[in-house]
C-alpha cells in the first residue's frame, strides 16, 4: 500500500497524464460532476459520483464502427478507427467498477466485441472508496463493498491523504510510475477508513433491500406479476434511467450518410423506447409496461440467469436520483419482491 498527501494530488495527476490520458470527475457549472480529461489546473470533484457513469469510456454513447464508400454498384469498407491511447480513469466508485464486470460479460463473451475489448485493454481504472454515500446508495444489496473498491488500483481518501493499492499488473505498473510521489505505508489508516464507511453503510435507508425474490429461473414467477401495470403506469418512456445506468448496454447500429460516404455507427439505445424492438416482424414489446418490465426483468432475472446469478445492477442510485417521475429499481424490487414476504 502506498500513500501520498492530498496536497500532492495534482502532481500525481500530472505524472499519470504524462503517459496516458487521465480522466477524473470534475465539477460542472450546473452543480453536478462529470468525467473530464485532466489538464493542468483541472480540479478533482468532491462529489460522490458523476451523473453519467464511466461506462462511456469503454462503451461510448456513439462510436463509429466503419465507413462505406460507394461507387456505382461497388462498396468499399473503410476502417475509421484511430490507434487508441492508453488512458486512466481516476476516482471510480466501487459500484461503477463492478459495472465493468457486468459489461465485460456481455461484450467480452463470444463473439468478442473488438471495439469494447480494445478500449478495455487500453484503460486503467483507479477506483476510490466512498466516504459519504448517499441515501440513494444500495450497492450492498449487490454485495459490493464501497469501502473495498476493485479496479486496477484501489484508492482510499482520508482528510489529508490518499492511499493506493494495486490489484492488477496494469495497476501495479502504473503505481510503480508514481513511486517517487508516493510512499509505502501500512493499511492502518485505510482500515480505519473502511470501518467508518461500514458504520455509515449500516445507517443507509436502503440497507435492507434484498434480491431474495429475484435471480435466474424466476422468469415465470415474476413475468406475469400484476404489479407491473401499476409500476409502469407513470413511465414516460424516456431513456434517462438507461443512459445514466452504468450497466445498461443496449445499443443500436445506424448508418449516417455524410454526403461523402456512409458512416456506420453504434449508439446507446434504450429498451424503454417505444420502437426499440421494432424489427422486421413488427414490435414484440408494444406497450410501455412490456418495455418497463423488460428492463427490470433483464437486470434482476434474465441477466443473472445467464451470468451465474450476477445481477445487472450495482446499486449506484443514479436512476433513483434522475428518473423524471421517480420510478426506479428500488421501488420495483420492493413492490415485486415485497409480496413474497406477505
Amino acid at each position, binding site marked *: 500500500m502506498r500513500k501520498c498527501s492530498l496536497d500532492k494530488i495534482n502532481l500525481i495527476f500530472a505524472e499519470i497524464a504524462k503517459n496516458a490520458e487521465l480522466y477524473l470527475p470534475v465539477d*460542472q457549472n450546473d*452543480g453536478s460532476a462529470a468525467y473530464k480529461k485532466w489538464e493542468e489546473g483541472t480540479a478533482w470533484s468532491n462529489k460522490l459520483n458523476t451523473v453519467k457513469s464511466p461506462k462511456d469510456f469503454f462503451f461510448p454513447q*456513439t462510436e463509429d464502427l466503419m465507413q462505406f464508400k460507394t461507387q456505382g454498384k461497388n462498396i468499399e469498407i473503410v476502417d475509421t478507427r484511430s490507434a487508441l491511447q492508453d488512458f486512466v480513469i481516476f476516482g471510480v466508485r466501487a459500484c461503477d467498477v463492478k459495472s465493468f464486470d457486468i459489461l465485460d460479460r456481455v461484450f467480452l463473451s463470444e463473439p468478442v466485441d473488438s471495439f469494447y475489448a480494445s478500449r478495455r485493454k487500453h484503460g486503467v481504472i483507479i477506483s476510490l472508496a466512498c466516504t459519504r*454515500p448517499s441515501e440513494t446508495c444500495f450497492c450492498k444489496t449487490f454485495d459490493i463493498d464501497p469501502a473495498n473498491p476493485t479496479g486496477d488500483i484501489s484508492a482510499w481518501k482520508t482528510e489529508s491523504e490518499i492511499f493506493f493499492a494495486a490489484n492488477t499488473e496494469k495497476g501495479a505498473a502504473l503505481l510503480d510510475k508514481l513511486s517517487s510521489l508516493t510512499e509505502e505505508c501500512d493499511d492502518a489508516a485505510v482500515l480505519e477508513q473502511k470501518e467508518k464507511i461500514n458504520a455509515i453503510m449500516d445507517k443507509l435507508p436502503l440497507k435492507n433491500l434484498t434480491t431474495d425474490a429475484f435471480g435466474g429461473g424466476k422468469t415465470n414467477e415474476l413475468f406475469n406479476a400484476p404489479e407491473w401495470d401499476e409500476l409502469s403506469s407513470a413511465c414516460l418512456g424516456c*431513456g*434517462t434511467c*438507461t*443512459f445514466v445506468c452504468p450497466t445498461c448496454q443496449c445499443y443500436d447500429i445506424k448508418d449516417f450518410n455524410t454526403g461523402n460516404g456512409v458512416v456506420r455507427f453504434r*449508439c446507446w439505445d434504450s429498451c424503454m423506447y417505444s420502437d426499440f424492438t421494432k424489427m422486421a416482424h413488427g414490435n414484440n414489446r408494444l406497450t410501455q409496461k412490456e418495455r418497463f418490465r423488460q428492463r427490470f426483468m433483464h437486470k434482476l432475472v434474465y441477466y443473472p440467469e445467464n451470468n451465474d446469478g450476477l445481477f445487472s445492477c450495482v446499486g449506484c442510485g443514479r436512476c433513483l436520483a434522475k428518473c423524471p417521475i421517480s420510478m426506479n429499481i*428500488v421501488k420495483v424490487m420492493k413492490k415485486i419482491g415485497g409480496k413474497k414476504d406477505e
Partner: protein
Amino acid sequence: MQKITRDQLVSKASELLSNGTVCCVLGWGMGEFDYDVTPTVFNTVEELNNGFVFNDFCGANFSKYLVSKAAKCDGKILVLLKPCDTYSFNQLLTEHRFDREKVYVVGIPCEGMADVSKVKAICGEGILAISSNGDNINVTTLYDENPIVINAADVLAERCVNCKSKKHVAYDELLGDEGEVIESNRFDEVARLEAMSADERFAFWQNELSRCIRCNACRDACPACTCEKCVFDNPNSGVENKSPANSFEEKLFHIIRAYHVAGRCTDCGECSRVCPQNIPLHLLNRKFIKDINEFYGDYQAGEEVGMRAPLVNYTTEDLEPGEVFDRGADNA
C-alpha cells in the same frame, strides 16, 4: 410549505370517488424518500389513504398524462392541477388531445415546489427526511446529528422562483383561494443572455448543450410534446437520431424541439425539471415566448382554450425577420 394539506386532498378525492363523480384519481404516490413522489393513478379510497402524498416535491405536471389516461377510464378521471399545470391543460384541450368530458379537474393552490437538487446543494448527500415547517424546511441527513433548517424560498425550483401565475385557468372545482397572474421576472435570464456577445452566447450554449445525453426526458415530460410520433424518432423524417453524435445534433434537437413547441409552450418548466443534466432548457422556450411577446404582442399559451398560436397566425404588419436582430440589440 403548501397551504393545502395532503389530508384535504385525500378527503376531496375520496369524496369524488365515493360519490361516483370520478372513477380514478391521478395524484402523487409516496416514494422511498420524502422527495421522490411518483405520479400514480389511485382507484380506491383505500389506495388514496395508503399511498397518496402531497408535499413540496409534487412538481410533476399531470396534464400530459391525460392524453393517455383519460381515454382509458370508463368514467371521469380526477386530476389535481396546480395553477401552472392548468395552462398546459388548456393548451392540450386547444389541440384536441383529450376529451374534456372525461376529466374532472380540481385546481389546487401551489406555494411553489422545492427542487431537491437545491436541497442537496445546501445539505449534501444522505438526506433521510425532509419536512416542512412554516417557511422553513427541516432536513435530516446521515451526516448531521441535528436537522438542518433551510429557508424554503432558497430551495424553490427555478420555475417557481419565476412563477408566472397562481391563477387556475381551468378547473371544475377549486380548493383554497384563487391566485392571480404574477408579473414575474422570468425573462431576465433570457435578457441577460441576449445582452451577451454572440461568442459568449455560443460558449454558454455549447457548454450547456454538450451535457445533453439525449435521454428525451425533456421531450417525454413536455406537455406540448404529445406527437404520436416525434420527428426525432421517425426514421423517415431525415432528422431521427438516438444519441447526439456531435454538437450539431445536440443543437438540432433542442432548436427544433423548442421551435415545435414555440407558441404552444406554456412555460411550465417540466423540461428543465426533468433534465438529468440540469440543462436550462426552459431558457430556449422562454426565448421564443419572449420573442413572440415582443414581436407579435403578449401571448400566453393555454390562457384560454381555442386560442390560435402566434406561429400559426399572422398580421400583414408583422416585422421582417431581418428586423428581429435590431430589436434584440435594443433590448440588450
